[in-house]
């Protein structure tokens, strides 16, 4: 990952490397030094800044998507089993 001589200095990390760390970065699961490098890069790279925003949008939207299944097909049977079990062992033991 070392910067080779003559490469443009956008920061020490390339965009391709940045993209691999985006999810961990958004969740604040990267080491301080890497976080600093990423933040520096994002400050001067519009492409990566856009990419980070898009991944954040995806993360937020996925949790809000309508859920198809709500209840088991045979929820009545499950409830009966739960009640029966509770009667057998009311204290939970």
């Amino acid at each position, binding site marked *: 990952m070392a910067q080779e001589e003559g490469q443009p200095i956008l920061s020490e990390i390339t965009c391709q490397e940045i993209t691999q760390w985006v999810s961990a970065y958004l969740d604040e699961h990267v080491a301080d030094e890497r976080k600093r490098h990423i933040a520096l890069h994002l400050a001067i790279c519009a492409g990566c800044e856009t990419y980070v925003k898009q991944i954040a949008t995806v993360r937020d939207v*996925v949790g809000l998507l309508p859920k198809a299944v709500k209840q088991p097909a045979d929820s009545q049977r499950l409830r009966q089993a739960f009640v029966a079990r509770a009667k057998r062992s009311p204290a939970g033991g």
Partner: protein
Amino acid sequence: MNVETSAVTESVSHRMVAGRKPELSQSAAVANGEVALLARLRQGNEGAFDELVTRHHSALIRMAMGYVADREVAEEVVQDTWMVVIEGLGQFEGRSSLRTWIFGIMIHKAKDRGVREKRHTNFSSFESADDEGDEAIDPSRFHQSGEWAGHWAFPPQPWDDQTPEKLLASQQAVTAMNRAIEALPRTLKDVLILRDVEGVETKEVCDILKITETNLYVRLHRARERVRQAVETHLERRPSAV
């Protein structure tokens, strides 16, 4: 049933790499709304049981689908999971969260069922597929050589007007995202469903799936990237006037 329960009982994996910013501790995760629910469950409160089922059923079905042949079998696996939960509640000691325990039972049952059906017999290769090997993003989007090697050749175009609300209001966008999620390999889908759909904390996802934190973020990012690509493709196809 006890054998099955004990096989997955509250085993908390400690194989994680050192987290720089720990989230909720295990006990805090348990305390996170589950203690009161568990107490009501142990009292035989039907409402508590309905609440538990409603809370986790959708995610259990979606994850089970990754291990077995079809929806019907996934329903059976999750139904069986709930039966084990009902029988095992009395012995549950809360060393892991209730959710970790329940999802662990489901995965155990789903794997067992998947192997028995011989639909997904080669679990070991299936598990390792689509993990750390490839790049998350198509490498051709970056300069391959020259002084800009590794930097964007085709950067993403901003989604200026695409707030989460706006995306959710578009049926086509929702369909595109759902299709992308359903098409994910199981290892990626499990992580995305637990972390982003269900909002499970990182450490607990690692415990449920028995993977390291590093591994989790590789998978999670690959999954998010595929959904991002689906949104990107959807927006590119959209008439520009919209």
